[in-house]
């Protein structure tokens, strides 16, 4: 029983830290640390730097060009890069569709798509949710009709994160209405340039454009773009969701936010005294740090179980719930630390400076926006209530 990193792991940690220092664009790091909106190129410059080093296929097996890192190394990489202000690697290609293609795709699909996902040439987005199918995903209606060598896709997807940047979308489509609804779903890979696809922005409560609606109007998709068998898509969809489990807790990012919050609490003054001296605030900060530490060790336990190829225990299912709750508490605390600076709605001016002049402290500029934005975390990826249903069934056996 030992929670420390081994000497080899410590060397690896140092290597990642040094690489990040040398290769992460300082301007991108600044934007991440200050919580600014990132452009497509901000994500991609970091992605390409990692690709050049051979470090982008985190969690991928070596045969597909992955790093071959074990789970602990993945955690170290996540923690160190997040701490330095690296943008999150967009998961839709790397962590979501790629494992599906590796496990269920054919050789042609693997040869074509995986290298382009690794290099960052193709940006992927996710076509799962529909206006009528949120938590009840299997009720989805977006229809794909087989006509010769093609499927003709008609319908609508929604909550498509960063779909405005995407080159490809992976889609769950209905190919049959017979039998159980789970048994009529197929998994398609669709080029976003195909005629008939329309992307419309959804402006969220923080007034940002992060997600989209994607409309399909007689979109012709070659049959060879179907992954696996027809009507077996639900199996692949569930595989994708479970594969994502450990990343979703966001421990690395949370640790970075805690660090920032600690700094803020030392600087923000009330009556000339730093906020950290306010016992009520300090209690809240202490509590969330403790909860985060418990989450981190729980994550390490899950990773360790995976390393030993033991079945992940009940703790795995808890990561999403706990992780999203902690992320929400952290954004709420940052907003509270801002005090009256939480009130103005701040836009970035043309010169990158905020248009509310007295809000010069970058830590607070986006605090409230993030608080609003992070309400999504307990809703997406299967709402926390759905997660509780899953644990009820699979772990408690009720």
């Amino acid at each position, binding site marked *: *029983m030992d929670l420390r990193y081994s000497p080899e792991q410590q060397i690896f940690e140092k290597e990642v830290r040094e690489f990040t220092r040398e290769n992460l664009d300082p301007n991108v790091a600044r934007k991440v640390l200050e919580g600014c909106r990132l452009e497509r190129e901000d994500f991609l410059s970091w992605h390409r730097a990692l690709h050049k080093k051979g470090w982008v296929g985190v969690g991928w097996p070596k045969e597909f060009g992955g790093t071959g890192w074990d789970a602990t190394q993945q955690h170290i990489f996540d923690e160190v890069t997040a701490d330095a202000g690296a943008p999150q690697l967009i998961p839709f290609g790397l962590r979501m569709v790629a494992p599906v293609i590796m496990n269920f795709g054919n050789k042609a699909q693997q040869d074509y798509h995986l290298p382009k996902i690794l290099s960052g040439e193709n940006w992927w987005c996710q076509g799962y949710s529909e206006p009528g199918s949120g938590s009840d995903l299997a009720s989805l209606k977006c229809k794909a009709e087989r006509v010769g060598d093609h499927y003709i896709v008609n319908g609508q997807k929604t909550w498509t994160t960063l779909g405005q940047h995407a080159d490809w979308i992976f889609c769950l489509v209905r190919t049959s209405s017979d039998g159980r609804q789970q048994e009529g779903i197929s998994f398609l890979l669709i080029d976003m340039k195909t005629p008939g696809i329309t992307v419309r922005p959804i402006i969220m409560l923080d007034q940002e454009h992060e997600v989209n609606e994607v409309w399909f109007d007689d979109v012709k998709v070659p049959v060879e773009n179907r992954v696996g068998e027809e009507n077996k898509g639900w199996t692949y969809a569930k595989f994708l969701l479970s594969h994502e489990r450990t990343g979703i807790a966001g421990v690395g990012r949370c640790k970075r936010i805690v660090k920032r919050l600690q700094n803020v609490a030392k600087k923000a003054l009330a009556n000339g005294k730093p906020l950290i001296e306010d016992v009520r605030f300090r209690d809240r900060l202490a509590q969330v740090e403790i*909860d985060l*530490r418990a989450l981190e060790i729980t994550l390490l336990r899950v990773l*360790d*179980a995976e390393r030993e190829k033991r079945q992940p225990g009940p703790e795995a299912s808890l990561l999403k719930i706990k992780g999203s709750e902690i992320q929400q508490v952290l954004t709420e605390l940052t907003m509270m630390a801002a005090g009256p600076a939480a009130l103005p709605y701040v836009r970035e001016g043309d010169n990158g400076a905020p248009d509310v002049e007295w809000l010069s402290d970058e830590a607070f500029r986006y605090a409230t926006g993030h608080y609003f934005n992070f309400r999504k975390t307990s809703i997406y990826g299967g709402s926390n209530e759905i997660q*509780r249903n899953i644990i009820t069934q699979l772990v408690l056996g*009720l």
Partner: protein
Amino acid sequence: MNFSLTEEQTALKDSIGKFLERDYTFDDRWKVIRSPEGWSREHWNQLAEIGLMALPVAEADGGLGGGVVDTMVVMEQIGKGLVLEPYLGCVVLPAALIKAAAGTEEAQRTSLSEGLASGETLYAFAHTEPGQRYERASVALAATPQGDGYVLSGKKISVLGGDCADVLIVSAKVPGDTEASLFVVPATAAGVTRHAYPMQDAQRGADIQFSNVTVGADALLGARGKAQAAIDYALDVACAALCAEAVGAMTELQKITIEYLKTRKQFGRALGTNQALQHRAVDMLMHVEMSRSMALEAAVSVDNPDAAARAKAISGAKTLVSQACRFVGQNAVQLHGGIGVTHELNTSHYFKRLTMISVTFGDGDWHLARYGDALLHAA
């Protein structure tokens, strides 16, 4: 990083598990509760045979030289079985205190450790005082120098194992000293009066009055006026042990509750088919698993030579575990309904033990404040 138990640790866990199955059923436990002593010397000897008493004592001092993780393994089983024998109060806590306070004074350490390791001598740490709450440095019991020795006067309360201990380790302050000292006092010494009582969870304890108790200079454990570090260390060890015990008890209580949700029927179906109850049960599980993680954190941090880092880790763990003790205990009772508030079912016994753990050696608020102090001082 490694989360596995060694072969020896697994064997230790299994032998205590067997003892619990064979000799510590709920009925056996009732018999012990109703006995005049409230614990069983026979059980004590059985646990000593497994090696539990010698476990936390260094090999050089006649023990088995077990580490903090071994103690964690033991305490988890003790929590699972709701063991009444005063292992924490009479073994874990005094062993840590003797180790830390006697330090390099080998002769003193060895002589005290011998009886502890064999299970023949019971020690208890008399520290808590009226009005002290959880403040560890606030010691009022006076040790007035007289001749070569000291005269002890004052009162200790809620002493774990204070009812049965042969030897008391007493914190006291010599007038003029800024820090407390520790004295080793036979429980039968003239002027020592014990008022023993059962605790809320059926464990036993005592208030102990010291009225002009005369002790020699050799009663001092460690250096005079320099005991605070040892006291802090020993109480941190005890907190880590409590976290592990809580995890054992919570895990069992969670299991019992799920069983009940599966079998108890109302409105013609099992209680566990109701989503409101299902989600509550999941929340209980989350508290148990987060506690398990923090009990690990506490165990591996307890021997951190950086005392400030140790304090922060232990208090973080005890905060979270104390909160979980309340949540899991209260909701186990709630999910059981009426039967949960009776004395006849073990549910309430687990609930009571978890509640006591949550308020022993610092409650969640006290440890949260201690953790917050660490944040403040790092600022």
